[in-house]
């Protein structure tokens, strides 16, 4: 059975704030689903439990720029909740001047 603390731990891992009243409800609902999906333990699967990749294979391409620099900068910045205009850093190309997405304090 999931406890309130388990939901708190998961909400920390997933970076989602969960209200007090919702914690118990979520614990019960996730429990029900986990009980349902545990049916998979009844299926005999090959002993080598590392799933085979089947006929999948890697697809690679050259590591070059698909888009011209700055092509989407303005449109992307329009979507950003917080932004700031700063001068281009030394040595930067012209299109890097101007728009930056602003983030809060990290430490």
């Amino acid at each position, binding site marked *: 059975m*999931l406890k309130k603390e*388990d*939901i708190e731990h*998961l*909400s920390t*891992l*997933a*970076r*989602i*704030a*969960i*209200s007090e009243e*919702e914690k118990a409800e*979520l614990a019960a*609902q*996730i429990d*029900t*689903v*986990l009980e*349902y*999906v*545990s*049916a*998979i*333990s009844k*299926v005999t*699967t*090959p002993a080598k*439990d*590392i*799933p*085979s990749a*089947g006929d999948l294979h890697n*697809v690679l*391409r050259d590591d070059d720029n698909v888009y011209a620099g700055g092509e*989407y900068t303005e*449109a*992307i910045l*329009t*979507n*950003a*909740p*917080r932004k700031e205009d700063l001068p281009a850093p030394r040595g930067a190309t012209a299109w890097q001047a101007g728009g930056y*997405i602003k*983030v*809060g*304090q*990290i430490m």
Partner: protein
Amino acid sequence: MAVDVTKLTIAEAGRGLRSKKYSAKELTEAVLFHAKKKNATTNAFAEFFDDAIAEAERADNMLREGKETALTGIPIAIKDNMLVRGKLSTSGSKILSNHRAVYDGTVIKKLKAAGAVLVGRTNMDEFAMGSSSETCAWGSVKNPADPTRVPGGSSGGSAAAVAMSGALGALGSDTGGSIRQPAAFCGVVGMKPTYGAVSRYGLMAMASSLDQIGPFAKTVDDAEILYHAIAGHDPFDSTTFPEEYVRKKENDKKEKLVIGVPESFVSMEGIDNDVRENFHATLKKLAEAGHSLRTIELLSLPYALPVYYVLMPAEVSANLARYDGIRYGYAKDAERLADVYRESRGEGFGKEVRRRILLGTYVLSAGYYDAYYNKAVAVRSVIIDELKSAFREVDVIATPTTTSPAFRLGERSADPLKMYLEDIFTVPANIAGIPGISVPSGTVLRDGTRLPIGLQFMAAQFEEDKLFAIGKEVEQVCP
């Protein structure tokens, strides 16, 4: 001239446009007028695109110059999780309420190049998580056949848009049944292509090993036209297959098909009696038309749904990490970065999305990873193998698309597991990466209203042609 859109198909409209019975502009105006009227009841559309008429005029130019395709001038609706450059693109979520697409997804690029007219974006369950289109942040979608009932989901808006003739075709996405189930509930054709047949570039990812874009249409013929317009290799989606896989040769066409019927799977409890009767009656008609029925035993099929409810939330929890209040969408201001994430996501995501992210985080967390995620991946291989061997004996596998006709609004939203069981017949195709189609197979009477139901066929990888062929047969026997 006034165009009656209610019975109009893509194929028929194409003929009308080419023979100049009406222009693309007149057709688009007629469809939009009708769509707006119906939308007041169904809420299928989140937005009607204001440049649709301009697009129709471009289509008229293509027609004049003889450069038209089967989709030129055809009004198409787009699920709100596919990027259309410059348009709002929200996935039915508050967290993306002000998000504008920076580029066109590959399917959109292809539709525009073909001259299709994009009339609007359709409402959906938030981030495609749901089977009723009730988790949409912009209000529930209602079933055009009975507005007290759900249209199915998650692509409920696209299904309803086509059913109410608010568009002649639509695109949806299908991760566990999100095209086929609403198609069945709304009485239209819905098809999920082979995994890797259609590019997902510009589709908001839900569960990347399962997601696939596909068409909604009034007829199988129309669905086939739309499928061919969007399928093909794309360097921007490395899961797409090379062209030669997607474009099948014409020469292996068979007149009569062997239909596999997984009897024990379709006769388990919880399936509506009328649905089961319709299923068997339709199969009988197909047999009378010369196709053969073969009972098959697929013991792993009932495990597809539990496998899905491990893999899907696991992938959801990773894919939705990008919605963090930094680059786009809803943002809650906080002193520390970690709190910006926590608060933006806590407030921006709806309940079902939060539930699935936490569930996915759980099955991927240390100590549970092997028992849930790895085990589910292993069982997935068992299901794939069993289906592969079944397709050595049969051309297609038939099941009902859903266990019941459309249920009432609110009837299942309190019990997540009950809602999840909606996907029992549709999920196996996603788990195995094979194509599936739902075709209307009649109606059942509920409280004085005739409600549509659907018949589903699955085929082996890249055997879409067989699905279209058998689908057209169903249209013959279920007029």
